[in-house]
C-alpha cells in the first residue's frame, strides 16, 4: 500500500524533508523499519505517531492512502 509520511520539528531536519511517500508498505512495522534504515539517527529522538490526524498510542493498522505523522514532543504557545 501507499503511505504518506510527515515529519515535524526536529525530525524534519533529521530526515531532511517534511514529507515522504512510501510504496508497497506492508504494515506499520515495515514502514518504521524502512524509515529507520533510511534515517538511522531518528532512533535517538522521542516522538509520537499520528495516523490521519489522530494520535495513536499503540502500533496502528495502516490502510492504503493513510497519512502517518512523526511528532516530536509539542512546544506550542
Amino acid at each position: 500500500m501507499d503511505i504518506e509520511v510527515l515529519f515535524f520539528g526536529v525530525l524534519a531536519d533529521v530526515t531532511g524533508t517534511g514529507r515522504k511517500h512510501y510504496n508497497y508498505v506492508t504494515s506499520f512495522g515495515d514502514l518504521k523499519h524502512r524509515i529507520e534504515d533510511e534515517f538511522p539517527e531518528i532512533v535517538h529522538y522521542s516522538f509520537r505517531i499520528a495516523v490521519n490526524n489522530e494520535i495513536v498510542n499503540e502500533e496502528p493498522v495502516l490502510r492504503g492512502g493513510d497519512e502517518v505523522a512523526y511528532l516530536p514532543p509539542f512546544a506550542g504557545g
Partner: protein
Amino acid sequence: MKSCLTQGPVRISDISNLLAKGAGYVDRGGHSLFIGQVRADVSDNKRITAIEYSVYEDLASAEIEKIKTRLFSEFTDIKNIEIIHSAGIVKAGEIAMAVMVSAGHRQQAQQACSMVVELIKERFPAWKKEIFEDGSFRWKSAE
C-alpha cells in the same frame, strides 16, 4: 491556513477583532484574555531574536476543537472561546498566541482561559525553532 492559525505574529488588530467579537452580547459578564509573547532569552551567551513555529495544521485544528469541547463540558458558564496561534517566524517582543474566553461571570472566564492555555501547551502540535542573534538555531523542547 486553518482559522486558529495566523502566519507570523498575532497582530494587535487580530486581538482588537477578538474584543470586538465579544462586545455587545448581554449574556456575557466577563472576558478573560491571555496573550503569549516571545521572550529574548539568553542561552549559552546568545540572545534569541525570534522563534519559528512549525505547526501540523490539520491536527492543530482537530485538537483545538477537542479543547473547546472539553472546556464547554467542564465550564457551564462559558459562552465563547477564541484561540489564535502563530505559524512561521515571530520576533522577540511580538505576540505568538492569543486566547479569549467569554463567560457569564468572571470566575469561569478566568479559570477556563487558564485551562485553555495549559491545554494548548500540552496538546497543540507546534514546534519552536529558537533563532539566535548569530543566525544559529536550536529546537526548543516543551516547557
